[in-house]
């Protein structure tokens, strides 16, 4: 590398605090995969933004040496919407868990998807509230015994893929924290997708939900069944929805992808059209004078 060439962005530069996660937590692998994809994409370090709400996985921004924001429970997507819409120069990443995304922040997930806000959202789904020490989460399997369901969970869990597809997310994928190569491939495709891209990543909570994803982990004797895109048309919403029927262990890969205008682009078009009608960027004083003339 010559002295003048920009320094290559490496995992070393991207690493910040050592994660506070428990030893064996699936989230470590998610972080490592994220670093590897960023090493490949080589975005300028100052243009990377990581945003999270509350939860174990939502500590993510502290572990990435990029601009970051650790927000309140459930509202990370809403805040990221403001960042994404007002700063098209940035690469916006949101990280969070199942409680943050499907429970307290469920409404924002719906509307971010519908509006096709340009950002990438990784849901580290462990089927349990871990930070608050083992309460039932919106994705906990029926019968799961927790401190809030001592005799086993009785509420039907959210089906993340169905929820995301029906909400109108334009890139919906599913991965598994035990499968680094698969995660990297999913994250890279999600990042390169223009619009709202989500990767639900099963990430085991070894303390409160140990063994929960063994069925889909070949190292634990399970089967990791990936989607064959020769057979599955990712643009076919009905096929994607049908495939999502099998919630667990289910398939892994890209369920659905749709190219459609982002809200970012549509808002920018409105700005451009408004300014074009005014003959280009107008002086705010002139705009105000003109408006007040009508009130005289």
């Amino acid at each position, binding site marked *: 590398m010559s002295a003048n060439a920009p320094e290559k962005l490496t995992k070393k*530069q991207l690493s*910040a605090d050592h994660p506070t996660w428990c030893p064996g937590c699936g989230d470590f692998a998610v972080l490592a995969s994220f670093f590897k994809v960023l090493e490949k994409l080589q975005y300028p*370090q*100052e*243009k*990377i*933004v990581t945003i999270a709400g509350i939860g174990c996985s939502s500590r993510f*921004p*502290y572990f990435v*040496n*990029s*601009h*970051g*924001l*650790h*927000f*309140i429970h*459930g*509202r990370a997507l*809403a*805040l*990221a*919407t*403001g*960042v*994404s*819409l*007002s*700063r098209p*120069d*940035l690469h916006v990443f949101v990280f969070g868990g199942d409680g943050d995304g499907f429970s307290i922040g469920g*409404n*924002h997930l*719906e*509307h971010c998807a519908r509006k096709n806000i340009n950002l990438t959202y990784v849901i580290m789904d462990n089927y349990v509230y871990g930070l608050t020490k083992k309460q039932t989460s919106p994705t906990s399997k029926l019968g799961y015994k927790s401190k809030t369901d001592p005799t086993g969970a009785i509420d039907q869990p959210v089906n993340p893929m169905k929820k995301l597809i029906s909400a109108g997310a334009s890139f919906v994928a599913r991965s598994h924290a035990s499968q680094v190569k698969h995660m990297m491939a999913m994250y890279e495709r999600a990042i390169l997708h223009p619009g709202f891209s989500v990767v639900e990543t099963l990430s085991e909570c070894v303390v409160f939900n140990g063994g929960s994803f063994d069925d889909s982990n070949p190292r634990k004797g399970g089967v990791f069944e990936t989607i064959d895109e020769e057979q599955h048309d990712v643009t076919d919403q009905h096929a994607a929805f049908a495939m999502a029927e099998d919630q667990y262990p289910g398939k892994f890969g890209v369920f659905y992808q749709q190219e459609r205008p982002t809200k970012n682009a549509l*808002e920018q078009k*409105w*700005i451009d*059209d*408004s*300014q074009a009608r*005014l003959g280009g*960027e*107008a002086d*705010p*004083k002139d*705009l*105000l*004078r003109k*408006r*007040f003339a*009508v*009130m*005289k």
Partner: protein
Amino acid sequence: MTIAADEPPVQGSDHSELSTPPLQDLQNAVIRFAGNSQDGIQTIGGFLARLAGRSAREVMTYMTIPSTISGGPSIFQVHLGSGEVLSAGDDTDFLVAFYQHSYDNHLSSLRDGGICIYDTDFVEPDLSDKRYEFIGLPITSTTIEAIGGSTKSRGKNMFVLGLVTSIFQLDRDKLVGIIERQFGKKDESVLRNVMLAFDAGYAYPIGDVYKNRFSLKAGTSTGSDRVTTDGNTALTYGLLAGGVRFGAGYPITPWSPVMEVLRSELPKYGGLFLQAEDELAAVSAALGYAYAGHLAVTGSSGPGLSLKMEALSYASMAELPLVVINVQRGGPSTGLPTSVEQSDLMQAIYGSHGDAPRVVLAPQDVEDCFYIAVEACRIARKYSTQVIVLSDQALSSRIEVFDEPDWDAVVVEDEGPALEDRPDDFKPYPLDGDTRHAPPGAKMLGGKYPVVTGLEHDEWGHPSANPEMHQKMTNRRRDKLKRLMEEIPTPEVFGDAKGDVLLVGWGSTYGPLREATGLLRDQGKQVSHMQIRHLHPLPKDLGEVFDQFDHVIVAEMNDEGLYGQGQLATLLRGRYANPKIKSITKTDGLTFKIREIVAGVSEHTGNA
């Protein structure tokens, strides 16, 4: 009721015994239009207000609207004056009643000797009531006849506007100019029908008895660059002048008009307004803009402000700048959504969890809605803090006339995110200096990138649960508002600097309090008035001002609570521990009447 051709077209009081009544040269006229919300009575009021603005007159309007989707009783009151107009008027001089319910509910608003104009197609008045004069005419059927066809009740408002123009000898040409500008952009037939209805009202033969009785004096106010608008509009353009380019909100009465205008206006300024899925998303997205380096606004009414509170505590901890508009309305919960109250003061100052100090301002009239918005932007930027602006329902919709702002002096350019490189010793939260964030996009030359957090943190923004650090940072967040307190001017005292009574108010009660003070002073009472625009932090020298008076009486539109004082009175008592501070409160959903304030002062001072 129909009128036979040979009948006189005007019914009402018998004037046969009156010889020619003298021409009344009016200083002031208070006219109340009472109808249903779909009759366009707001349009009459709006035109009259604009005409006043162009005729060097002062004006203040007052309206009530039903909280129904369509229909329901509604009033629009216009107070026109040739001198200073400070309130919408306690009693009305003229009532225009469109329906029987309008007549039944609003006749008592007329002063003795007042005139009730009513639509004979719908209203049967009690003509034996000798307190008032009655003028009856078939407003609805004449309008239908004038426009020709089956337009039902449309155009009645323009008919009445023409009638009022004729009765008060207002400047018809100027008014027609304003009407043409308003409707000229629409289909040609719209303007034609509007003018047919207007002229039918203007030419209606109500008789010389009325035609020559009233003449509204020419105005005394000077300046040609006068604008006529309502509080929400003034506030909205104040935000734009203050440099706000991004916003997010959720619809709620009476805040929605602010977000509607921002949604359309911001793209022209290169910005945008997001209609969020809920109040939580609105404040969160606005904080996203703030984090990204833009000055942003969110807003709502009381219920929505409650929903934003958690995020506002976050903003306090993270020290992100934000302007928050709260157009207050009546009562807790859905309450009285289209009525006025000032009961969100405590919520605005203390509504969040933890110690989360922030700034609270309140505009005192329509013009001040503009300037307070500009000031909110300045303070939010300078102190990297949250500023809540407390407007209210009455202020949001009432129309006043004021001088066009001096744009060169007022407008703040939006500089956008500060993306310059940050040195390796960069600290966003220095213990000995101002908060300065490094927004995303800024290179950190030291190689370490910041995480903005709601966890307690050190000077670098790094999470810290150190007890000493939490104390130091709590002090820091408090002390920056104390620095702001140093620069807040002491509010001016109207009247003498010392005396018997100092009337104190905040927000939209300015006009009625000032008018009541003037009235009491005319009666020889030693009463002065102060309106507080900066509510948190309070101006620092209030104690010395209060010491000059025997009574400090705080009037506000909220409840006296369990301990007998309104919300501002409670705060002032808490701060000054001064037993001279007393309270006048009310929560009937209506603005203060002058006589209510006068009675409250008498009660507290013991002289009737």
